[in-house]
């Protein structure tokens, strides 16, 4: 026996590190050489009322065969306030789409930040941010930008807009790859002379509505693009900065060993994470070991369960069925509900403050912005949009979770004489369900379908899929308010939860709404899923009617060049619009060794 222990003692220290080594082999998440999270946009300067197209790469989710994971996207202003946000579906760590910049957004410097929406792997540790300028269409003063020009990050490079002079030599632009930049210290750049891809065009000058044939080719070297996007936009809307930055950990930070942390392994392939904390309403101290339910309104019961840890924290990982706007979090049992406070974390809160780069408000930038304002106004006036949103099947369509497939008994109150409240209904119509009132509290229990004895504990009751904590909240329901009552009076297990039977009431209206707003529940809003929208550029090949004006800032946008597809020369083509001046073809990405790169080429439209 002693010998066995000695052998184990000798072997385990050698083998345990092997576990972690194996982890890092199987996933980027455990590796120290995780490539940086990156986000890029089709332009750097936007006018409110336009769409901002983004593409992101979260390497910790770059696992073959994996998709359906989610990422959070936030557009925040310099005071760290969220302007717009959403979640996007990741496909091997890549996601793209667009954010609509509301007309009411005020002029300023903003940041688009993205990070994994799940806790699995290294989610949250790898947050990328990118600075963009958004100008209100009706802002003639541009004071906010002028203010920003004097308040930027000390010691950082000043952002300069690419000039729109008619001559290429006058633009101050260079064709080729970036060799320096404000984020160089973040380890983002390929060194000078090490182009990752080269961009070529069939000409350097084009007329309006003329086809441009371009191509990209990986440079001869060991590095190749792991992820990249291509944009072709007016040079005036692209600044010389805007590099994707890597930030620190996302604000939500689970304690190691807590329930939240323990759930991490299981949430790797799941959907959105909802976290929060339960505290005592009187003393404010965290409450441990509280059974918490998360439910949502609908035709089925989609139940999630969590137990609070020592810090009172709970964590729910939504399954792939969710397509709802809000969910309801409640304690499992009613005696607790009076004395607890449930708070949920803000998933879009980014811990690191956003310190914008300084903007060089020279006359070139001001005139470029004013021109963009006018162009956008014309586009809005004529309703010109080249936005393309593919119709995708609902992501979670078939993932219908069910607590049980068929109830043991179903009662439809409309088939009987109308009754005045739930107590009466249970007594007269649902013989398996007994409801009794004691000291102003309602108690209920079911008859076990197998033993024909009463269960000792109360059943779980749901109204339109929402967990009912206090039966008294729905006591007032009359026959006319109830479509059906499903009784499932079996000793039932659902994952880690055991029930002494289940009662599911389907109401004729939205009676659950009054119930969830009475303070017992925490209502958590589910952000919308951002569609994988792109730009659908027009084609001027002589076919079709193309009389509409074409004032596109962005001529071409390819959000994701899949890994492996630029192993060799790759051609792409697009048409110029009615706007003249210099345009930039920009390829931004991350190389196989994890360094960021930007390559760009200029052409002129006359």
């Amino acid at each position, binding site marked *: 026996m002693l010998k066995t222990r000695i052998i184990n003692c000798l*072997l385990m220290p050698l083998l345990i590190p092997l576990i972690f080594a*194996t*982890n890092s082999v199987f996933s980027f998440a455990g590796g120290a050489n995780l490539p940086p999270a990156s986000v890029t946009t089709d332009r750097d300067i936007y006018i409110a009322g336009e769409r901002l197209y983004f593409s992101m790469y979260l390497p910790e989710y770059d696992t073959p065969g994996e998709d359906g994971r989610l990422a959070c996207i936030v557009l925040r202003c310099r005071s760290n306030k969220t302007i717009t946000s959403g979640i996007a579906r990741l496909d091997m760590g890549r996601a793209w789409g667009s954010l609509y910049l509301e007309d009411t957004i005020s002029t300023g410097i903003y940041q688009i930040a993205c990070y994994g929406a799940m806790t699995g792997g290294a989610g949250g540790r790898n947050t990328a941010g990118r600075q963009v300028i958004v100008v209100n269409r009706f802002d003639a003063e541009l004071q906010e930008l002028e203010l920003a020009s004097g308040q930027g990050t000390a010691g950082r490079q000043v952002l300069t807009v690419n000039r729109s002079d008619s001559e290429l030599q006058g633009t101050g632009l260079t064709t080729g790859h970036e060799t320096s930049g404000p984020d160089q210290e973040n380890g983002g750049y390929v060194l000078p002379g090490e182009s990752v891809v080269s961009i070529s065009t069939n000409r350097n000058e084009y007329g309006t509505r003329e086809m441009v044939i371009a191509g990209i080719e990986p440079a001869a070297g060991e590095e190749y693009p792991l992820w990249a996007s291509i944009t072709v936009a007016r040079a005036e809307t692209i600044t010389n900065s805007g590099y994707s930055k890597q930030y620190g950990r996302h604000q939500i930070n689970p304690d190691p060993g807590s329930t939240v942390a323990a759930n991490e392994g299981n949430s790797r392939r*799941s959907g959105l994470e909802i976290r929060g904390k339960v505290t005592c309403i009187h003393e404010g101290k965290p409450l441990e070991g509280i059974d918490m339910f998360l439910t949502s309104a609908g035709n089925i019961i989609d139940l999630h369960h969590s137990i609070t840890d020592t810090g009172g924290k709970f964590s729910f990982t939504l399954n792939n069925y969710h397509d709802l706007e809000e969910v309801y979090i409640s304690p499992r049992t009613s005696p607790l509900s009076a004395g607890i406070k449930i708070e949920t974390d803000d998933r879009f809160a980014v811990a690191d403050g956003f310190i914008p780069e300084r903007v060089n408000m020279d006359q070139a930038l001001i005139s470029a912005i004013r021109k963009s304002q006018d162009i956008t106004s014309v586009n809005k006036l004529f309703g010109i949009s080249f936005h393309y949103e593919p119709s995708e099947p609902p992501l979670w369509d078939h993932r219908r979770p069910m*607590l049980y*497939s068929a109830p043991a008994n179903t009662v439809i109150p409309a088939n009987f004489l109308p009754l005045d409240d739930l107590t009466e209904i249970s007594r007269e119509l649902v013989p398996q369900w007994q409801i009794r009132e004691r000291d102003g509290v309602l108690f209920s229990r079911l008859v076990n379908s197998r033993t024909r004895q009463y269960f000792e504990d109360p059943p779980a009751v749901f109204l339109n899929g929402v967990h009912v904590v206090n039966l008294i909240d729905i006591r007032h329901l009359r026959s006319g308010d109830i479509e059906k009552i499903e009784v499932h009076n*079996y000793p*039932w*297990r659902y994952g880690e939860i055991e029930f002494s039977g289940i009662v599911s009431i389907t109401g004729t209206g939205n009676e659950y709404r009054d119930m969830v707003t009475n303070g017992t529940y925490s209502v958590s809003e589910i952000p919308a899923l951002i569609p994988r929208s792109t730009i659908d550029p027009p084609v001027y090949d002589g076919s079709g009617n193309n009389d509409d004006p074409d004032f596109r800032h962005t001529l071409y946008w390819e959000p994701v060049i899949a890994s492996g597809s630029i192993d060799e020369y790759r051609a792409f083509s697009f048409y110029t619009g009615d706007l003249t001046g210099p345009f930039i073809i920009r390829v931004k990405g991350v190389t196989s060794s994890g360094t960021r790169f930007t390559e760009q080429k200029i052409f002129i439209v006359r």
Partner: protein
Amino acid sequence: MPIIKHITTNIAFILITVTLCYGGIFVPLAGEVWESRGMYTGEKYFRNEWMRGDVMLENGMVAENVRLRYNGLIDELFWLHEGSMQHIRLDRGLVSGFRMYVPEEDERLEFTKVERGRLSMLGTSDIFVQVLYDDIVILYAYRQVSRKRDVYVRRGRSRYKLTEVEPDPVYFLVLPGDIVIRPDTLNRRDVYRAFPGIRNELRSIFRQRRNVSGYEQQLKETVRRINRALEEHQQ
């Protein structure tokens, strides 16, 4: 030798840890907390031990690496909830199939839920069948366990009734066009005519009794040959 044994044990531990780390999503299984009723002699389970396996749900989710046992007497799948050691009769309406792993035989037993009507059986419900071969021609085995007789035994002063049960598998061949034939009841001449190239093999199969050892293996081999013959014919 003991060192090798310990290394093996520890590597197994590591592999299990890694598997659990990357084993995937937590999918809640639903079912009735089961209390066994009746006493039996013989095996009512397809495999008596709890085996590791996965449960495929109707909603497309898969509950991975759970302990399962199939009861052929009542055609129900049981899940061992390891936290409470409760036996859970899984809600069959939610289950579309399951697989169980036999590590010592390096084998994966694949089961699917099929409507009785599809197998030309009486009734409107469904049954779990083991997929022995899945190609153009599919071979299913319904692992039913039948009651043979009641046996009365005396233990001390008490007398108990035990129900004697024994495996009574039923095999189904599903041909293209959802034509189902049971090898034990089919018209042999029709089959010979349908597959003249493998007539001798079919004849040797039909001559054997259903429960003879090796019958199932030979049936699988025949189905494999039928599939190959059909593929060649299609080409």
